[in-house]
C-alpha cells in the first residue's frame, strides 16, 4: 500500500480516487450477488422438488449454533460499521479496537462452523459414498453428542419424511450439497474478509487512516457487510425448514 493518502498516478484528486474505489467495490459486490445467485437457484429448485428431504436435513442442524452464529455475524457488522465511523471522525485507537473486535467475532464464527462441520462428518452427513441420513438413528453409539430425546424426535421426523419420499437418503444428499456448498462458499468469503481485516488492522495500528483518507476501511467494510447479508439469507434457508412440529 502506498503512503497515507497518496494520490495514485492515474488520478487527479483524492476525491476521484475515493469515488473510483467505492464504485469498484459496489460493482464487485454485484458480481458476488450473481455468484451466490447461481447456487441459490439450485437450492430453490431442489428444495421445492424434494421438500421432505430438505426438511429432514434442516432438522439435523443445530438451531442454537446457527442462531448464535447469526448473532455473532450481525454483531461483527456493527463493529465494522463502528470501525468505519471511527476512521471518519479521526479516533485512531478506536479504529483498531473495532477492527480487532470484528476479527474476533469472525473467528468465533469460524469456531462454531468447525464444530458444526466436524459433527456432520462424524454423523455421516457429507454427500458421498458414506452418506447416511439414518446413521445416528440406527447407531446411537456413533453419535454420542445427540441425546436420547433428540434421537427420538429425529427418528419420528425421518420416518415421516421417508413415508413421503422413499428415496430419502439419495435426495437428502442434495440438501447437504446445498448446505456445504452455500456455507462453504460463504466461509471462504469470510476467510478472505478476515485476511482483508488483518491487513486493515496493520494499517490502522500504524495510524494510516485519517478522516481525509479512510477509503480502505470503507470498502472492506462494504465487503464485510455483504458477507453478513449472505448469511442473513443462509440462516433461514438452511436452518429453518419445517421446524414447526
Amino acid at each position, binding site marked *: 500500500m502506498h503512503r497515507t493518502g497518496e494520490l495514485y498516478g492515474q488520478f487527479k484528486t483524492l476525491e476521484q480516487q475515493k469515488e473510483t474505489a467505492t464504485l469498484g467495490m459496489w460493482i464487485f459486490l454485484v458480481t458476488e450477488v450473481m455468484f451466490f445467485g447461481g447456487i441459490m437457484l439450485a437450492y430453490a429448485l431442489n428444495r421445492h422438488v424434494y421438500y421432505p428431504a430438505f426438511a429432514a436435513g434442516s432438522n439435523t442442524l443445530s438451531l442454537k449454533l446457527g442462531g448464535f452464529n447469526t448473532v455473532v455475524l450481525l454483531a461483527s457488522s456493527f463493529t465494522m460499521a463502528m470501525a468505519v465511523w471511527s476512521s471518519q471522525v479521526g479516533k485512531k485507537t478506536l479504529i483498531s479496537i473495532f477492527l480487532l473486535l470484528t476479527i474476533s467475532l469472525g473467528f468465533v464464527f469460524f469456531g462454531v462452523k468447525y464444530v458444526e462441520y466436524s459433527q456432520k462428518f462424524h454423523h455421516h452427513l457429507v454427500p458421498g459414498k458414506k452418506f447416511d441420513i439414518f446413521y445416528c438413528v440406527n447407531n446411537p453409539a456413533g453419535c454420542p453428542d445427540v441425546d436420547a430425546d433428540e434421537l427420538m424426535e429425529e427418528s419420528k421426523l425421518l420416518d415421516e419424511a421417508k413415508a413421503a419420499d422413499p428415496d430419502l437418503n439419495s435426495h437428502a444428499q442434495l440438501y447437504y450439497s446445498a448446505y456445504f*456448498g452455500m456455507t462453504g462458499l460463504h466461509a471462504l468469503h469470510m476467510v478472505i474478509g478476515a485476511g482483508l481485516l488483518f491487513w486493515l488492522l496493520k494499517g490502522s495500528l500504524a495510524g494510516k487512516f485519517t478522516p481525509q483518507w479512510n477509503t480502505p476501511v470503507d470498502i472492506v467494510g462494504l465487503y464485510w457487510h455483504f458477507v453478513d447479508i449472505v448469511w442473513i439469507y443462509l440462516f433461514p434457508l438452511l436452518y429453518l425448514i419445517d421446524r414447526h412440529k
Partner: protein
Amino acid sequence: MSAIAATPAKTLPEHHYLNATYGIRSWLLTVDHKRIALLYLVSVTFFFFIGGFFAMMIRLHLLTPSGYLLSADTYNRMFTMHGVAMIFFFLIPSIPAVLGNFFIPLMIGAKDLAFPKINLLSWYIYVVGGAFTLYSMVSGGLDTGWTFYTPLSTVYSNSAVAPAVVGIFITGFSSILTGLNFLVTIHTMRAPGMTWFRLPMFVWAHYATSIVMILGTPVIAITLALAGMERLFGLGFFNPAMGGDPILFQHLFWFYSHPAVYIMILPAMGVISELIPTFARKQLFGYHFVAAASLAIAVIGFLVWTHHMFLTGQSTYAALAFSFLTFLVAIPSAVKVFNWTATLYGGSISFDTPMLYAFGFLGLFLIGGLTGLFLGCLGTDIHIHDTYFVVAHFHYIMVGGAIMGYLGGLHFWWPKMTGRMYPEWLARIAALILFVGFNLTFFPQFLLGYLGMPRRYHVYPPEFQVYNVMSTAGASILAIGYLMPMIYLTWAAFFGKVAGDNPWPATGLEWKTQSPPLTENFEVTPVVTWEPYDFHNRPDLGLDAVAVNEVLPAHGHD
C-alpha cells in the same frame, strides 16, 4: 502524403511507452495499460493457434465420411478443445483485453485505467487459467463439448474435465476484473469536456460489454464450481442418479454463455463503428441510436438463453417467451447495421484494409444474424438444432463478425500501437484471401445443416462428402488468410514505414497523441470541445469542410 494528413514523421518519437523501460521485469511487472494490452495480444494469439490446431484436426478428419483420421473419442476431444480454446481464451478476451485495454484510456483522455494493478492481475489470472486448461489438453483432453453438459461431464466422462473446469473458472475472474476496470474507468476517469455523448462508439461498446461481463461471468463461475464439486466431491445438483437435474445445469450454463456471445460481438461492433466513419469520411449516422442499441443488446441478451435448450423438454410457454425475446434481440443489431449503412451513404469511401474488414463484417454478420432467426424460431429449430446449420451460424458471427472486427481494429490501430504502418497491398490481399477462405469453409455448412448433417459426429452419410471437402479446402485458405497478418504485422512492428500521429486521419482522441504514445498517454490532460466523428470541423487535425471535399489520395502509406 497529402496536405490533409499530418506531416509525416521520418522517425519514431524519442520517448514512448515501448522504450520507456527495458527488461523482462519491466514487462511482466508493468502497470501500463498499453504494455498489458500487448501481453494479452501475445497470449490470445497463442491460444488462437491452439484453437486453430484443433480446428485443423476436425476439418482434416471430416474429409471422408467414415472417420479415417481419428477415433470417435479423439474426435470428441478435438471439437471440445477447439471450442474451449477459441471461446474462453481467444474470442472473449480478444478485443476488450487487447484493443480495449490499449485504447479506452487514450480515447477518454486518461493516463491509465482506474485500477492498473488489477489490470495486470487480470492478465496473470488469464495466464494461470490458461495453464490449467493447457494441462487438461496435454493430459488427454476433454470430450464433453465446450458446453460441459451433465452428467457426462460430472459423472461419466473419462477425460480431464476437472483441470479444464478449474482453468475456465479462474479465467472468468480475468474477464470480471477487466469489465469492472472498464466500467469504473469510463464513469470516473473521463477528461474534462468528454461527456457521455462525445465518447467514441468503441467506448460505448465496451461499456455495454463490461455490463455483460460483470453480470454474466459470475454465474458460469458458480456453475463450473458446482460441476467441479460434483465431479470431485460427489455433490449432486446435476446428477439424475441422486435426484439432480441436468437441465438445471443447462439453464445456469447458458445464462452466461448466451450473453457471452454478446461479449464477443459487441466490442467488434464498436470497432466497426470506428472504422466506417473514418473510411467513409462521414459522421456516424444515428450516434445516439447506436449507443442505445449497444446497451439494449447487452440487456436483452440476458433474456434469451433458453433458445439453446428448445429441444430439452422444457415448458412450451417458456419456449414461446424466449423465442419471442430472441427475435427482439435481433432488432438493436439491425438498428446498428442500418446506421452503419446510412453512414456509408454519401460518404467518401476508401478501401484501405481496415475498411475491407469492416465491409466483410457487414456482409457476414448480416448473414450470420439472419440465420439466427431460423434458429430462434421454434418450428424450424426442431429441424436444424444440433446440425451444421448452427455451426455455420455461429461461425459467421464469431469469425465473419468478431474476428473480422478484431483484425480490422488491429490494422487500424497498428500504426498507433507500434508507430509503424503495415504493408497495405499485402494486407488487402490477405483480407481478400481470408474472406474467400471463410465463405468457402462455412457456407457449405449451412447447406449441410439444412440437409441434415448433425454436428459433433465423427462420421457422416457419404452424400455429404462434397460439401465437407469444400469446407476443408476453404479452411486451408482461411488459415493462410490468418497467417499472413500474423507475419506481416509482426514484421511491420519493427520494420514498417513510420506512420506519424494520425495516418488515416481519424478523429478520436487517441490520434492526437504521438505514435507510439507516451507511457502517461498525454503530457497535458486534454480538454475536449468537439463532437465525435466530426470530419468537417476539426482544424486541429487538418480536417475542415474544404479539405474533406478534395479528392483524397491514399493516406498513411504509399
